[in-house]
C-alpha cells in the first residue's frame, strides 16, 4: 500500500505542528468544555488552553469529538 500525496502531506504537516510537550487525549477531554465555551463566546484563549488548540491540530479524533460538542452547544444556544 502506497502513501498518497495527501497522506505524505498530512505527515509533513503533523511534523510541522508537533510540540515537545503536548496534551494527550485524556488531558484534552477534561479541558475541552472550557475551550469550547470560550470559542463559542468569542473570548481569547488563556495560555493553558492554547495547548488544547495545538492538540486539536494534531489529533483527528479529538477534533471530531470537539466538532460534535460544538454542534451540541450551538444547537443549544440557537
Amino acid at each position, binding site marked *: 500500500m*502506497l502513501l498518497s500525496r495527501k497522506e505524505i502531506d498530512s*505527515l*509533513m504537516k503533523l511534523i510541522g505542528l508537533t510540540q515537545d510537550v503536548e496534551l*494527550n487525549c485524556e488531558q484534552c*477531554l477534561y479541558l475541552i*468544555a472550557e475551550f469550547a465555551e470560550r470559542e463559542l463566546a468569542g473570548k481569547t484563549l488563556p495560555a493553558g488552553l492554547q495547548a488544547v488548540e495545538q492538540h486539536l491540530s494534531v489529533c483527528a479524533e479529538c477534533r*471530531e*469529538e470537539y466538532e460534535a460538542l460544538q454542534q451540541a452547544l450551538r444547537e443549544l444556544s440557537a
Partner: protein
Amino acid sequence: MDTLNRNNEIWLSHLGGAGSDQQAALADLRAELLRGLHRAFWSWKGVDDDFLEDAVQDALLRILDHLGQFAGRSRFLTWATAIAIRVAMSELRRRRWQDVSLDEVIADADFSPLWTAAKDAEPTAGWERQTMLATLRDIIHQQLSQKQRTALLAELKGMPQEEIARHLGSNRNAVYKLTHDARKRLKQALEAAGYQAADIHVAFAE
C-alpha cells in the same frame, strides 16, 4: 430542583452525595446528556435512541468516576457532555472498524513506498520537497521503532487511535504517546538535517 438552576457546585455536591438529591441529579443529568447527544449526533447514520441511551449510561459511570477532574472552569453540563460524546464516538469508531485488521490498513509498515510514491506521484515536485522526503524516509527507517512506524502509518491511513490500541493490546493514551514520540523524533531529525518547521510548511503548503 430545576436542572437549569443547579450551578456547578450543586451538581458536584448532589452527584457526589447520596440519597434523593443524588438520585434526582442523576436522573436530570441522564436527561440532559441524552438531549446533548441528540443535538450532537442528529445527522449521523446508524445512531438511534437505543444507541444514545447506552452511551449515556456508560458516560454516567465515567463522569461519576472522574468528578474530581472537573475544575469548574466551564459549565458542568458542557464538561459532562464532552465526556458523553467521547464515549459515543469511541463506540461508533469501534463498530465502524471492528472487522478491519491492522495488517489490512498498513499492508507495508516500513514506509518503504514513501519515496517511490513521492517520485511517481509527483515527478515534477520541487527539488527541495524531494530531498526533504528522501531525508524523511531515511529517518523513518533509521530512528523509529517498528511499533512507532506501525502506529504512525495506521494513523495516516485514518485508523482511530483506539482501534490501533486494540490491535496492539494498548490504550489510546499510550498510542498517542507512541506517535507523539515518533513525530518529535522526525521533527528533531529533520531540524538536525537543516529543515526547520517553516521550511516544512513551505514545501508542503497546499
